[in-house]
């Protein structure tokens, strides 16, 4: 298995407060890695560093064998790292369809077509197919400001991964989605990612979801890797049960 992503002893501290303390992690092509951990364990910080949003204080990140530490999200996006957000980052004043059209004009269509008419037919058709795939086409003409959270979540992920990236980072794909919609969302999403054999790293609080979809689980605690391996092995570790699973099950899901 070829290594797609390597994090080597990556640390980040914010004004002396340590958010990640020497995380080492290698992800091979095609893996689907679930990251678990309590709030403040460093999950989002790790994703932020991999996607280039923040620069690690120390350590390095390699993507496809190249050092990409500290490269901006814009460049990494073009190189094939896609990322979705815990709080969907969308264009609130545009419609669902327009949001997807913007994503496609940047990630799928060539840059040379940026001066083409925004509403051109080919683009609209591609977008409608994607909205259909995520089953949100009935919201196509609604302004994002007024669509439900579940739709926003799907749209956010759909926009991030529309360009067939080689690495997908999902920050809590099911947060804010009702529990009965959660499994449907993951089934649809993971079906697509698996079909394309896209390497995926996702942060998730719902252990049931992690168990079902992750091929490998990484447990973070206090900025460090507590356990890393097959879901069965990780979930049977005593520290994981005590420090992460126990806590997240009692704590309100957010």
């Amino acid at each position, binding site marked *: 298995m070829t290594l797609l992503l390597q994090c080597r002893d990556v640390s980040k501290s914010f004004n002396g407060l340590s958010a990640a303390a020497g995380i080492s992690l290698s992800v091979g092509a095609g893996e689907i890695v679930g990251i678990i951990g309590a709030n403040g364990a460093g999950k989002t910080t790790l994703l932020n560093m991999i996607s280039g949003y923040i620069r690690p204080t120390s350590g390095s990140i390699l993507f496809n064998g190249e050092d990409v530490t500290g490269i901006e999200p*814009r460049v990494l996006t*073009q190189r094939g790292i896609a990322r979705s957000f815990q709080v969907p980052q969308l*264009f609130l004043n*545009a419609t669902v369809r327009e949001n997807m059209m913007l994503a496609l004009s940047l*990630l799928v269509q060539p840059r040379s077509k940026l*001066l083409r008419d*925004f*509403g051109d037919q080919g683009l609209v058709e591609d977008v409608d197919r994607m909205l259909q795939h995520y089953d949100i086409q009935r919201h196509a003409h609604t302004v994002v400001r007024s669509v439900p959270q579940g739709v926003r979540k799907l749209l956010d992920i759909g926009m991030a991964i529309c360009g067939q990236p080689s690495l997908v980072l999902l920050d809590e794909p099911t947060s804010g989605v009702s529990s009965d919609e959660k499994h449907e969302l993951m089934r649809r999403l993971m079906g697509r990612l698996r079909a394309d054999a896209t390497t995926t790293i996702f942060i998730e609080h719902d252990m049931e979801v992690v168990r079902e979809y992750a091929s490998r689980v990484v447990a973070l605690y206090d900025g460090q890797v507590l356990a890393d391996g097959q879901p069965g092995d990780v979930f049977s570790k005593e520290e994981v049960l005590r420090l992460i699973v126990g806590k997240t099950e009692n704590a309100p899901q957010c």
Partner: protein
Amino acid sequence: MVVTVAAGLMVSAPLFPGWVRYVVQIALAIGLVSLGVMILLRAGLLSFGQGLYYMVGGYSVGFLSRHAGITDAFAATATGIVASAAFAALLGLFIVRYRSIFFAMLTLAVAMIVYGVALKVSLFGGTDGLNVRPTTWLGYAPRGSQLQLTQFQFTVLLTAVLILAARKLLNSRFGKLIEAIHDNELRLEYLGLSVRRSLLAIYVVAGALGGAGGALAAMAARHVDPSFTYWTTSGEFVFVAILGGTGSVFAPFFASFLLEIIRSFAAAWLPDYWQLLLGVMMLALVLLLPRGLWSLARVVQRTFGRTSAPVLLREDART
């Protein structure tokens, strides 16, 4: 529509009295600069210093006429546009790092510094400014009313071309991305777009439009002075852009015509109060039509227009 109106104006030009043509020329020049302000507004940036490019455009014409003896309209406007675009590119490199009030204040500050310098440096002619020699067109050198008529036609033609280009830009994917910058910069970066470079690009476009307006105004008035970059001039462009709204490329022209008409009549009838009139207008607009006068056009369209398919674009500029 642009082509019809432009052609109509150019053909019927001899029917209008000279002062009407002059008012239209100035309104178009101000409209062009304000169109630049409007494009920046779409990205959420308020430039309070577009007077700077108005001045660069104006002085390009002035300097060419005075120091190089070049009076050709094509050469002069091209120089004005290129010079202001170059200025905008240089200044934009650092100015597009800022947003909201910081952007507005920086643009204002730079324009005022240039004003201060221009007043002191004799090259710019001090408060008196420079006179501009009669314009020529590729060797054609009309005089008297024929000169003004040709100038009018040239102004209408150039403005029409620039309006069409601006509309093409705003209706493009890039044009839609500009609006998205206002909404969510983080998402755009994660879609692989350099927000800073995009803003620089439209800042240059706005600067070029400002330069075109300045060049046309200087040729029409046959005069240019440092007040082109004074803050009240810049404020007028902002006034026009907000009065018209960001709904369409025509909106700033609609507003600048209204402003020039009011200015012409109010100066005669209410010489001491006409600014009061502008204030009242602005107040009424902000309270009653916060999206600008152009939103009236939408209301009219919705009321009298035929029922059409769902509107694809929110603020679609195609009319």
